[in-house]
């Protein structure tokens, strides 16, 4: 008997979910308060405790698990408040962190890139060099290490990241440097690249290493304080922290490898989507259809993918901009952010065309209708003007929306385009949807997934506003909108397992594979994984599993793909052939071509260790209503119909099996479902909304406005 609590800290809102033993989920939401994060969480938890007839202390005392998704690490990097970190690198290569991997994204503008993650004056070149086969053709000069440690400490370094060329093949020099740091600067946190992220490509590995080292002191302090605070508040259960893997770690593991808490919040949305997809949409074999996971926040629209029942992962997470920022280099749930959230701002360019985003009003000041000082027109303001959001009952009445402020914000655009306020608002929603559709097409097509064959799982407070027209544009006929959509990531944290990956680099070609050498590598990572699982004593796990993978590519290709291995070892030619066959299939899905007969270059061998935790059910409601009450009537504006009277339902009062024909609006405590004309929803037995979307032809166009307007604006 006991509650399970999860928290997701977002840019605009902090979501809190409490699951009861029976599987009922109670959701709380509070505006993220950067100054005192605990304040928002405490308030949201207090509200939920009241729903359960408890006070905060007894709720915490009766909770056995608390999973915390924090943006502490990400914020420290963005704000530049990480530890002062030194970088130790191979002599001759001091600028790995500055040069990165080159590339420029804007062909017609010189865009400045931020300085290297560690400045040159804190970068120390160590005399040593391994070759690609791990032979030390320059021995480690320990005197150069001691000088570097001494100078780094003298310059006030609070952490050290060590990344030497080819340490993944032979880590001896890095290991020795670790010993020397421990000996000569005892207590100073350090990260060795071959231990943290043993991948080939020096920039990625070095970037991982210095980011991780710079977070160690910060996360150590933060998590110790969190544990103490929770204990004082009465919590005596198991504390977990969300990771970018879409898994949960105990605080000690996060302190050891804090880089894995960067971006952990968004990674949980696909975990929730997969759980709902399995429960609500799976075929006879238990595999859900391919899922497109859409999570709308205040500033971004996050997209993740699930195919064949597996969440997509990526090693391409950049902080501060692709190619010019800093890459984490670690594997994470693949979530791509589109600059189109509820706070995205509508504007007119100097040529006279209207655009939406990527600039956002964010959480502060937020959309104009929040009444917190925002004056620019946002997507959320448009939704108020169109009648999609109920000003008097937003977030279950927790935030009153100011319709007049939304109108004032849209007036200049409407005037400049010669449109009514409603048409201008409609244009903003339409363009925001178009941006999202374009970005989703790119994301899915480059992963080899046809957007019209997926089911969308929509989450986030604002996704219900325009997910129907987005699905329609994509040619996608089905949307699952969980009743808990408003807190998709926090729910994902409740459904997550303890997951960790262990990696080793060993270059091998499949046409002349040294089975013993590869199996030795696999045995090495397996024993690390086993040790990790064994260390989880005290964690209430219902099962454990190990999965083996390799990162491989065709001969002379640039990038690798991750492919599952047929077993824990390669036992002979048949296993190698199975590996090649699996690679051909993945390559064809992702790149649309295969090259039969071509051998593979294998780079990195990895094992994923999972300890399955007890999870609540997917039920979305606390009690079953018997009969739907009459809906309210409200006015809403759609492109096809103009302003019409629609039914507005209170979602909590809808019994399972209820069918609702669009146009209609369903109000949930943390989200709003707008059923545009040409769509209909059914309430599932778990209380979620399964929406069928008609193809585009059923929807009529917006009334066209005068062409002259554009000319006038452009000519002025």
């Amino acid at each position, binding site marked *: 008997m006991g509650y399970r609590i999860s928290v997701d800290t977002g840019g605009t809102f902090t979501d809190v979910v409490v699951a009861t033993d029976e599987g009922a989920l109670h959701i709380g939401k509070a505006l993220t308060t950067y100054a005192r994060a605990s304040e928002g969480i405490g308030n949201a938890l207090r509200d939920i405790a009241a729903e359960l007839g408890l006070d905060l202390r007894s709720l915490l005392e009766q909770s056995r698990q608390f999973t915390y998704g924090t943006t502490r690490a990400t914020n420290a990097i963005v704000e530049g408040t990480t530890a002062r970190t030194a970088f130790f690198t191979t002599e*001759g*290569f*001091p*600028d790995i962190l*500055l*040069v990165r*991997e*080159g*590339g420029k994204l804007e*062909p*017609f*503008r*010189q*865009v*400045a*890139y931020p300085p290297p993650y560690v*400045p*040159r*004056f804190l970068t120390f070149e160590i005399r040593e060099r391994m*070759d*690609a086969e791990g032979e030390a053709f320059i021995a480690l000069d320990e005197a150069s290490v001691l000088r570097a440690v001494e100078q780094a400490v003298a310059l006030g370094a609070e952490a050290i990241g060590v990344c030497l*060329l*080819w340490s993944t093949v032979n880590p001896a020099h890095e290991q020795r440097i670790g010993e020397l740091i421990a000996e000569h600067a005892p207590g100073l946190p350090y990260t060795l690249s071959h231990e943290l992220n043993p991948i*080939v490509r*020096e920039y990625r590995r070095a970037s991982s290493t210095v980011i991780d080292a710079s977070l160690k002191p910060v996360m150590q302090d933060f998590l110790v304080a969190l544990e103490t605070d929770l204990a004082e508040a009465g919590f005596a259960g198991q504390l977990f922290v969300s990771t970018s893997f879409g898994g949960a770690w105990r605080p000690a593991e996060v302190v050891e490898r804090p880089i894995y808490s960067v971006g952990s919040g968004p990674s949980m949305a696909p975990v929730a989507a997969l759980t709902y997809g399995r429960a609500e949409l799976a075929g006879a074999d238990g595999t859900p259809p391919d899922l497109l996971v859409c999570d709308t926040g205040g500033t971004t629209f996050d997209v993740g993918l699930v195919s064949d029942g597996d969440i997509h992962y990526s090693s391409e997470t950049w902080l501060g901009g692709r190619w010019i920022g800093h890459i984490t280099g670690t594997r994470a749930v693949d979530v791509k952010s589109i600059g189109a959230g509820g706070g995205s701002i509508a504007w007119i360019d*100097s*040529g*006279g*065309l209207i*655009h939406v985003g990527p600039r956002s009003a964010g959480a502060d000041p937020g959309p104009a209708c929040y009444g917190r000082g925002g004056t620019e027109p946002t997507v959320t303001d448009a939704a108020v003007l169109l009648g999609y959001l109920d000003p008097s009952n937003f977030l279950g009445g927790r935030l009153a929306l100011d319709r007049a402020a939304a109108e004032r914000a849209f007036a200049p655009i409407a005037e400049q385009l010669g449109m009514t306020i409603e048409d201008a608002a409609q244009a903003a929603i*339409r*363009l925001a949807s*178009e*941006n999202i559709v*374009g970005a989703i*097409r*790119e994301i899915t*097509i*480059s992963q*080899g997934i046809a957007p019209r064959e997926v089911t969308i799982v929509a989450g986030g407070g604002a996704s219900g506003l325009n997910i129907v027209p987005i699905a329609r544009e994509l040619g996608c006929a089905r949307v699952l909108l969980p009743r808990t959509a408003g807190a998709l990531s926090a729910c994902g944290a409740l459904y997550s397992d303890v997951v960790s990956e262990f990696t080793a680099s060993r*270059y091998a070609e499949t046409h002349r594979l040294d089975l013993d050498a590869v199996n030795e590598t696999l045995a090495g990572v397996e024993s690390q994984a086993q040790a990790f699982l064994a260390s989880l004593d005290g964690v209430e796990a219902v099962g454990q599993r190990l999965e083996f993978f390799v990162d491989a590519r065709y001969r*002379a290709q*640039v*990038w690798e793909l991750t492919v599952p291995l047929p077993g824990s070892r390669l036992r002979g030619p048949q296993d190698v052939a199975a590996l090649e066959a699996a690679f051909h299939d993945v390559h064809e899905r*992702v*790149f*649309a*071509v295969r090259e039969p007969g071509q051998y593979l270059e294998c780079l990195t061998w990895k094992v994923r260790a999972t300890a399955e935790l007890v999870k609540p059910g997917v039920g979305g409601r606390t009690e079953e209503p018997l009969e739907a009450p009459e809906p309210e009537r409200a006015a809403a504006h759609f492109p096809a119909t103009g302003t019409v009277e629609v039914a507005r339902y209170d979602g909590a009062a809808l019994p399972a099996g209820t069918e609702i024909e669009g146009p209609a609006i369903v109000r949930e405590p943390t989200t709003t479902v707008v059923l545009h004309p040409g769509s209909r929803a059914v309430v599932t037995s778990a209380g979620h909304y399964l929406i069928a979307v008609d193809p585009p*032809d059923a929807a*009529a166009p*917006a009334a*066209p*406005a*005068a*062409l002259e*307007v*554009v*000319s006038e604006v*452009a*000519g002025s």
Partner: protein
Amino acid sequence: MAQQATAQREGEMDPVLLGIINNNFVNICREMGITMIRTAFSPIFSEGLDFSCVLFDRRGNMVGQAEFCPAQLAASLFIVRWTVEELGVDSFEPGDVVLHNDPYRGGAHIPEHSVIRPVFHEGELWGFVANVGHLAEIGGKAVGSFAADATEVFQEGLRIPPVKIVSRDENNLDLWRLIMANHRTPRNTWGDLNAQIGSLRVAERRLIELLDRYGAGYVTRAADELMDYSERWMRAEISAIPDGAYEFTDWMEDDGVVDEPVRFHVTVTIDGDRMIVDWTGSSPQVRGPINATYGVTAGAVYNAVFHVTDSSIPKNSGAYRPIHIIAPPGTVTNVVYPGPSVGGNTETHPKLVDMVTGALAPVMRERVAAAEGASACNFLFGGVHPKTGQYYANYHLEGCGWGAKDYDDGNDCTIVVNGNCRNTPVEIFETRYPLETVEYSLIADSGGAGRHRGGLGTRRIMRVGEGAEITASALFDRTKGEFRAWGLEGGLPGGYGAILVKRRGEDAFRTFPEVFGTVSASKFTNIVLREGDEVMLDAPGGGGFGDPRDRDREAVAHDVAEGTVTEQAARELYGWSGT
């Protein structure tokens, strides 16, 4: 359908729909690009992004493009017109694909291969989808098809006039066989050309969906309106520049064949809302391969104009209308048959871009930058790998320092203005090629001193590994004399580029003319290097902006602390007195 009702309303166009159709034009091109990246074999597409995707109406107006490679700006503007003029608009049938790479027919240089496919809607030709991509290997005298001492196009690779490589969706296999027999890595040619052709099918399908939805007539009118809109915007930008004729002269140190500097001259005239860019006064066409084709010169002009105007102007034919180019045939800015041109695209293009912005600098000081390193630092090598016995070839580039601006320092180590290529990690390089990297680091003081400092170049030293022998070619510039990246308003020039060699057992780096007797120190072909030999590649730095003595003292102190400026240079050039 309901949307077609919209199309029938005469004289009215929804500004929101106009924006959406513009997004669709761009998105179709982007999807074409993603398809190429996904399906190509060579890293030059997937990593180098050395291609462009374009959409045209039936009159050959470019209505949309995805901005992949600036080097192909002009090629992607002209290819359809020039092909249609030659073949005739009636020669196209549904399912055809025309291929060509002729530098004298609008191309940038011979490795650039264009493919063009007509798009028919309800039996009528609506327009064309096309893309231009750099094929990695197309034969010719040098590995990697980059002959730095070529004197005729025939040495640069296989030249293909506009021909149908696909007719009514059937491959012309005789033509394929002929092409592949003349390229050194036919597997890549097959894969990459098919990726290009396949992407056209994707774009055709998406364009037809768009035409179905809004009606061909409506989309045509939207395209016209969008071109007018870009034109108005570009004219407004040009009108903001004071009228006048602005001149600029710059030099290339040699052409790779004759050891003499090559002169480039431009006059940029602003006349109300139009701009005339005249290259008269540039040197006659030279023997070596640094001649620019008309496509390169025009592309460089557009690239420069886009750099100094609002970069969000939609890139369709309308944006180009107010820009007029004069490039006399038979000069280095408009090579005629059979002059060589392979290096014109990498080395001459960035120089021409800088010249146009340099000419405009006195009247656009807040928008221009000083000269960039402007050399792609092309270094090509190949051989048999001693460990695998397999043949390999590699086309290696370096980023240079970029020019400083009135408001900021120049970027360090960034690929030239006409390219997108990224760099190869040392650990990837060492798994593929039998060379060990000894050093790869910024060169202190290589950024031109100034109130804002030019970006730094890099030094890379590589040693030929055990048992290996490589055949190397190079095409660099700015290695000597007064040919460094110039500064503006008292800013000093950036550091020299260099390509030097140290033979095994020797203790100093020397030039290739000293060691191998090449004519040029920066441009040569097919030099054999053996185990233990070292090559040093220095990428040039960017020019500075403003008097270095006016540089913020904290910025100078930071430069010294970071080692980007030496203490001595800080004292001598910046008048720094700190410690």
